[in-house]
């Protein structure tokens, strides 16, 4: 068994908004081990990003977070904010969606890569700068010794995302959290970034949490996957099992809704309606109003439990046997 890096138990996040309390995440459990990639999939508003941000203490101030979060065996919810901050900076690296806005425009790229090393590894400014050059080289930025002093706007989108990855890896973290890191990029650039992360992961043994809405990316990067809908995990398991035998109607519908060359021509099996509003979630299964299976009245009123349908493969439904393919 490999070493567990991050584990989340019973995580619930409630956001105070102008329009009332929104339950963004409700009772989520998962963990990721060293060298492994855990993918969180879902549509906008499903709670996939919020669960990770809340777990690492980056939720907005209005958020109320409950549950347990263990980073390298240390209970994050029990430590002081200062300690949590240090643990986060030292052991967790983040890559966010938009490389355009996640870099500070008035600081050089090198400075931004280096500052984590100064803060957490006690390097001098000089050492940290040398380290930044190394890191930029590591992520494939050409002539890093010169580019280290460039400003973010002088980089292209793909190069910027590489710089962000360099920044995330500065302290050789045990965990890399990639929050839709390729969504803002073109498909050829996305392929570069996916390869880069896979290669770095292999070399550094980092655990990766990859948040995305793109099932294709999941299939390529993940070892295990959790599908989120309406703030809850509806299906979770080894990536092969989930893709080969999706147990939840939502997962199946998502996979089927993608155009597939094999079925070109016919209508796509679309899901009716839209994702639910976190301010106004149904009492039972959040997917029930759109569910093609529909089950019975129980689905509307009662939350289905996560049921194990195969080793490590769990599905939140009342009808696991009938629905599994």
């Amino acid at each position: 068994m490999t070493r567990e890096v991050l584990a989340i138990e019973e995580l619930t996040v409630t956001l105070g908004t102008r329009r009332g309390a929104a339950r963004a995440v409700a009772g989520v459990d998962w963990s990721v081990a060293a060298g492994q990639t855990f993918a969180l999939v879902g549509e906008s508003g499903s709670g996939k990003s919020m669960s990770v941000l809340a777990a690492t203490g980056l939720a907005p101030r209005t958020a109320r977070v409950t549950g347990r979060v263990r980073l390298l065996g240390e209970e994050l919810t029990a430590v002081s904010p200062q300690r949590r901050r240090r643990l986060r900076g030292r052991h967790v690296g983040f890559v966010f969606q938009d490389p355009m806005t996640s870099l500070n425009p008035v600081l050089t790229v090198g400075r931004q890569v280096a500052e984590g090393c100064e803060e957490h590894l006690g390097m001098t400014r000089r050492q940290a700068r040398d380290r930044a050059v190394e890191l930029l080289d590591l992520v494939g930025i050409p002539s890093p010794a010169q580019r280290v002093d460039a400003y973010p706007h002088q980089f292209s989108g793909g190069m910027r995302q590489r710089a962000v990855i360099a920044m995330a890896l500065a302290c050789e973290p045990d965990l890399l959290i990639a929050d839709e890191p390729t969504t803002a990029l073109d498909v050829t650039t996305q392929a570069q970034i996916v390869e880069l992360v896979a290669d770095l992961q292999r070399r550094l043994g980092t655990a990766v949490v990859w948040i995305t809405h793109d099932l294709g990316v999941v299939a390529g990067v993940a070892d295990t996957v959790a599908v989120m809908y309406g703030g809850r995990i509806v299906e979770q398991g080894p990536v092969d099992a989930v893709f080969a035998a999706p147990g939840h109607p939502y997962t199946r519908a998502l996979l089927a809704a993608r155009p597939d060359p094999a079925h070109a021509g016919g209508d796509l099996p679309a899901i009716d309606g839209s994702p639910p509003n976190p301010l106004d979630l149904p009492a039972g299964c959040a997917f029930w109003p759109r569910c093609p299976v529909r089950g019975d009245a129980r689905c509307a009123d009662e939350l289905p439990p996560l049921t194990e349908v195969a080793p490590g493969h769990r599905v939140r439904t009342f009808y696991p046997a009938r629905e599994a393919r």
Partner: protein
Amino acid sequence: MSRREPGGTPARVQPAPDTGAEPVGPGGGDGGLRRALAALWRDPPAVAGTVVLLLLVVVGVAGSWLAPAGVNDVDVDRMLQPPSGEHPFGTDELGRDVLSRVLVAARVSLQVGLVSVGIALAVGVTVGLLAGYYRGWADAVLMRAMDVLFAFPVLLLAVAIVAVLGPGLLTAMVAIGVVYTPIFARVTRAGVLSVREQVFVRAAISIGASDLRIMRRHVLPNIAAPLIVQTSLSLAFAILSEAALSFLGLGVQPPAPAWGRMLYDGRGFVTDAWWLGFFPGAAIFLTVLAFNLVGDALRDVLDPRQLTVSEARRSTS
């Protein structure tokens, strides 16, 4: 542990669900104004400001009936009397009732404020709309002209205009109107430029809508919010400017009462008769405060990101 504005952040961290049966952002939608008014009603300072403004309008209309004494009833026996039951705000150096003068002067302030801001709004919005929509040389010429006006400190330009045209109510209104025109032109132009780039304007062009139709149907309604805010704030500034002009003897001419003028006349006596300096100034302060409170609340509701360099430039004094 993170320090961010409440409200804004959830939408950023996690894209807001688009299923919401309720409005998404501020200023969006036609229900925007109605919702804005509802939100204003829940904001105590804004309510206070509105109440003061309503009172002011009543006083402005009915000031001379409300006044206990005539504004120019000189009474040499009762000079510089401190506030009392008979003269709640005291009397001035000519024995005139300060309360009556303060009440009657409200009309002048409101009148100057409304007319001058009306001028500035009409001219400024037209200029800004044409400049922002057509860009090119029209933009260059019009906005450079506005820059020229903008290069003078507000009061200095107003003083110069009044000095040349001769002091009086009308020239004060024109001068203040001219002085506040560029800010409306800028706000309008900035709004037009950003609305012009919106996809819905491109969509309107794509169906063959004419320029006039686009300006009327799509651009103007969508820049109404910043203009409403600017109008309210400019009213506050215009009233301050009028008070300053009157203080310099360049506004309404005596014996008609004006708050600024009363302060100027009373300034020699302040150490002996504090009420001469206090009440007219307090009237200006309350009026300006009321407009500012309402303007700020409107901004919070309609247009939260509008505190611009240009506004900061428009300080009075």
